[in-house]
């Protein structure tokens, strides 16, 4: 009898499990050292990471390394994560060491020559050749499927998808927004992709006043982009501290700040173009009060104020 009671009790709780336990996500939190880009750079450039070789220091790093490998057509390069390393002399990263040593620094002799011949390898002094990103897309799908809260994966994956299939990029980023309702970074990227779709589809239409299907499409996607930017900006208003940017204050690094300022600037700009310029000016003033020192917003406020004064 007690077995039936126990089985019934646990069975009922199990059957209702998706309802009872759906909110249990102890590892969904903002910030954290494992997710910090600065910490990741420190870890991956340490001797520990060198000892671990290509394993690097986290699963997300492994996935990103895979995308990097595909981006470089199979050639393995040492991590180049800092801004100066990424940009290089001309944005082509030459000088970054390959994981397979080059001839002048390889002590292995014939074995090294053989490895460079049979494996993808390129002289590290030459500029990197980047693929068009198509091979990267499944990795971003895999990353977001396994971790729906990976904002970085959605944002970068959406950016790559934009160049191949902007409509799919929009769907991918909308999924990201649904899974991460408080993410302004994904909204920033979604707004940009929506603008891209609008400009791609409206090859003949240059402004929303034009008639016809192209003009309608431009208006529809531009208005959607405006709304998405505005939502993102409101999130920034809620989650960012007041005042000028302070490096790493409350896990707020320069990458986060770039997305935050970007989404606010675009929200004001798109409101001016596809909405109400008076409202756009109010928005810009509110955003500027939050950031205190943001030159593009200041210039926007000056310009729109003058234009509104001139208007009849």
């Amino acid at each position: 009898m007690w077995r039936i009671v126990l089985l019934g009790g646990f069975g009922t709780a199990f059957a209702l499990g998706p309802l009872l336990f759906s909110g249990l996500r102890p590892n969904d939190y903002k910030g954290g050292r494992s997710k910090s880009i600065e910490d990741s750079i420190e870890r991956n450039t340490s001797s520990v990471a060198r000892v671990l070789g290509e394993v690097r220091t986290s699963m997300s790093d492994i996935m990103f390394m895979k995308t990097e490998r595909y981006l470089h057509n199979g050639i393995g390069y040492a991590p180049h994560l800092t801004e100066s390393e990424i940009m290089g002399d001309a944005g082509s990263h030459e000088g970054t060491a390959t994981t397979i040593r080059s001839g002048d620094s390889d002590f292995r002799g014939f074995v090294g020559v053989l490895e460079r011949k049979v494996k993808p390898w390129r002289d590290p002094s030459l500029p990197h050749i980047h693929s068009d990103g198509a091979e990267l897309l499944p990795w971003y799908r895999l990353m977001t499927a396994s971790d729906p809260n990976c904002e970085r994966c959605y944002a970068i994956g959406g950016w790559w998808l934009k160049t191949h299939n902007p409509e799919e990029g929009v769907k991918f980023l909308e999924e990201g927004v649904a899974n991460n309702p408080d993410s302004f970074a994904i909204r920033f990227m979604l707004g940009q992709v929506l603008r891209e779709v609008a400009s791609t589809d409206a090859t003949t239409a240059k402004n929303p006043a034009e008639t016809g299907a192209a003009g309608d499409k431009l208006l529809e996607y531009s208005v959607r982009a405006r709304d998405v930017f505005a939502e993102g900006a409101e999130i920034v208003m809620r989650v960012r501290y007041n005042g000028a940017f302070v490096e790493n204050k409350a896990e707020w690094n320069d990458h986060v700040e770039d997305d935050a300022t970007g989404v606010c600037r675009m929200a004001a700009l798109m409101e001016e173009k596809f909405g109400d310029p008076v409202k756009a000016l109010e928005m810009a003033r509110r955003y500027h009060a939050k950031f205190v020192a943001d030159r593009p917003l200041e210039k926007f406020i000056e310009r729109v104020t003058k234009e509104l004064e001139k208007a009849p």
Partner: protein
Amino acid sequence: MQAVAALPINPVRSISLVARGVLLETIRRQEFYVLFILMGVYVLGMIVTMVVGIENKAVGTFLLNLGMTMAYYSAMVLTLLTAARQVPTEMENRTLYPLLGKPLGRGEYLVGKWLAAAGIGATSLAVLMALAWIGAPRMEEYDAMMLAQTMILAVLSVSMLAALALAFSLVAPQAVNVVVLGLLVVVGDAAVGFARARAAPIVGPSAAQWITAYIPNFSILDTVTRYTDGIGPLDGAMFVGLAAYAVVYTGLALAAGAAIFGRRSL
């Protein structure tokens, strides 16, 4: 003269005797020595690293995370291997039949086995975690309450795995049981997320979410990275919910296992 069958049998004593048998067998097999040697290598590596010097705090935190994660997964592996082999091995060696010929219920037998497997897992978890925690450099702030919660949830995770491995061992071959549960422990969250994403366009997002939520999710009970990330403790409701999640799966696996085992023809 009183018949043997009429002797009053204390179920607690029966369970503890079965559990004791498993513990003695585990000590005889010496599997856990391998894990301790592996952790010893890690601790040795930590000592060398600290002598050489750690460049920054981020690396220190990474090493702490690596050690604690290794300890958690090592304990899970030991628990899985111990629990999955209990019933099949006893049936293969035919030691089960004389045991059940004694005044011992099948449910009690199963609970005894679970208690021992979970106990072995929890003990090795505590020792390995202690080695990892003491051995690793702690160069940043970590929350002590979060550490306590991490340990409790890890013990519950080990108990849940032991119960599921015992229940599955009654319906699946030992190798299949170890591989399936091992995959659930290691990549369960990613695999479930992927299955959910693939199923959503076919059955709808809500249905996909609901169906895949039944798959045991060990990753929500692993909060090691939350601890090393310096995040504060879980709130009461979340912690109780996670504990209840583990208890429900453990209880259901044991109750279902007892029901299957009770009706099984040996």
